[in-house]
């Protein structure tokens, strides 16, 4: 029987020909439960290979051991779409000599496909695989559902190593990534910790401020002119965004509106909307919770899509081009509607665009939902610390203190005004917040660029500076 099985990860790394200065890649469907990035870097460090570029679709707190590999020059450059606060803080303090390259979830696969960010060896964390490398995220003890972000890595990397903790006989049925893309298969005890991979049930917020914002968000959608048969929708997994989805579902069910698709990172709430008849299908690049994983496995209407299909610009089309409404978050938004999701208010990296810019650019209505202030820091600023998504792609900001429509979208302005929603100029909303919080003093910024933010079209959109140490 043919087999691509190799005895150990170390052997696979050797067979793949990895050496100093190369680029390796990872996908983030195992989220904060991922073991694969850490175990691969551990082996690579043990082999004495140095000066690697790590291209990971996202870097989570669980990946903190990468900091040691950076200090030891095993890793000298990072490319990612999102970076959680633990690694982000160290990067903001200047741990890397080379700036981090941030892309969007659509820009990353586009740049991989075009050879702008070539990958030498891709490591695919596969919850189930067969000995020839057909693999899936839907089955196994480490099931994560969709493998959407890994498709480009598997397709375009020079060598592809599948790492699994659930090897099944050939052929695996219902594979996501086909054997045609895979060079080697390695089995390990555990590719991740299920507790960190999927949350049990994602709960909607009970915070009254969040509920006010969510109900306003649902009213904006209701009166946008887009909520009719064929409606398509994406929302984040944040508490207020999920609550907005729940209010929206109530409206759609009451009015008998049948949408076309729900998109994105999928949660149980979107699954509930599918089952309630709000959508004909779900298009899923990443599952956030157990209910989503079960649904993508069992319900043919719940379809896995690649990151390229989800969001990549420059292809003939992507799903975001057909999206009606997206609800997004922000750490800051400025009076020109530019949004920051890369840093906190003190300038330290704690996130990234992910699909933010892609969906904002594609959707007919891109809504930011955010409180007027968090822990005394106003959300609306004169200039965001980092432009993650340009203001021209944002249509409306919903806060508990009022709704600000981008003046470029005159039609939405008119519709919401006719509906009697509490509209305010974004500058007035900023003043309203500052009347409660006081005006924050600007923090000193470093003078060294520690990250570059590439917009979804591939242009350098902004840079992030180091945060000076006190």
């Amino acid at each position, binding site marked *: 029987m043919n087999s691509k099985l190799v005895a150990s990860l170390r052997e696979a790394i050797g067979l793949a020909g990895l050496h100093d200065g190369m680029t390796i890649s990872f996908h983030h469907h195992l989220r904060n439960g991922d073991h694969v990035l850490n175990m691969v870097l551990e082996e690579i460090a043990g082999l004495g290979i140095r000066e690697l570029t790590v291209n990971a679709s996202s870097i989570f707190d669980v990946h903190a051991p990468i900091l040691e590999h950076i200090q030891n020059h095993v890793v000298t450059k990072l490319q990612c779409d999102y970076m959680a606060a633990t690694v982000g803080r160290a990067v903001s303090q200047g741990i890397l000599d080379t700036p981090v390259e941030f892309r969007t979830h659509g820009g990353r696969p586009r740049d991989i496909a075009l050879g702008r960010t070539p990958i030498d060896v891709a490591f695919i964390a596969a919850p189930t695989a067969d000995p020839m490398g057909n693999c899936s995220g839907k089955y196994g003890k480490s099931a994560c559902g969709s493998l959407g972000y890994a498709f480009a890595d598997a397709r375009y990397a020079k060598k592809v190593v599948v790492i699994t903790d659930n090897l099944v006989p050939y052929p695996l049925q219902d594979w996501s990534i086909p054997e045609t893309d895979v060079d080697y298969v390695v089995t390990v005890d555990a590719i991740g910790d299920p507790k960190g991979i999927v949350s049990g049930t994602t709960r909607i917020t009970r915070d009254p401020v969040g509920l006010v914002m969510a109900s306003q968000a649902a009213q904006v959608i209701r009166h946008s002119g887009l909520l009719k048969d064929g409606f398509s929708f994406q929302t984040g997994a944040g508490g207020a965004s999920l609550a907005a989805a729940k209010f929206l579902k109530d409206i759609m069910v009451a009015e008998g509106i049948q949408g076309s698709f729900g998109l994105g990172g999928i949660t149980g709430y979107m699954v509930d909307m599918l089952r309630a008849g709000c959508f004909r299908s779900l298009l899923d690049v990443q599952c956030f919770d157990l209910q989503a994983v079960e649904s993508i496995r069992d319900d043919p209407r719940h379809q896995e899509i690649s990151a390229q299909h989800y969001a990549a610009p420059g292809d003939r089309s992507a799903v975001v081009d057909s999206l009606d409404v997206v609800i997004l978050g922000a750490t800051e938004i400025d009076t020109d509607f530019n949004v920051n999701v890369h840093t906190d208010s003190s300038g330290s990296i704690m996130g990234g665009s992910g699909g933010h810019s892609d969906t904002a650019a594609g959707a007919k209505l891109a809504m930011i939902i955010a409180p007027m202030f*968090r822990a005394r*820091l106003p959300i609306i600023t004169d200039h965001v610390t980092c432009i993650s998504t340009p203001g021209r792609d944002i249509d409306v900001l919903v806060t508990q203190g009022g709704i600000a429509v981008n003046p470029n979208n005159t039609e939405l302005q008119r519709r919401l005004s006719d509906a009697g929603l509490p509209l305010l100029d974004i500058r007035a909303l900023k003043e309203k917040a500052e009347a409660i919080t006081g005006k924050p003093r600007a923090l000193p910024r470093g003078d060294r660029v520690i990250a570059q933010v590439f917009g979804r079209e591939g242009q350098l959109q902004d840079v992030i500076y180091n945060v000076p140490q006190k």
Partner: protein
Amino acid sequence: MTEIIRAASAGTLESSDVYVEIEPRTQGIELQLESVVLGQFGGAIEAAVREILAQFQVENARLHVVDRGALDCVIRARVETAILRGKGDN
């Protein structure tokens, strides 16, 4: 003048709240301030704390203020409560 005769506290360490501890001190005010928004609002927080102390004529006390991004009105209320809990005649 309000005399602080026992250690007292008010508030919590929840986000958007402030935890204020107050205790007796023989000479003057000693204020130790921590805040997640020290850079943006440190001056305003200290001014608010000292204003409430002056309002209650507290001249001798040691305060430890741990701020988690509380609004000005919350800071004033927590400091006031800590004073009332730590003063002599209640």
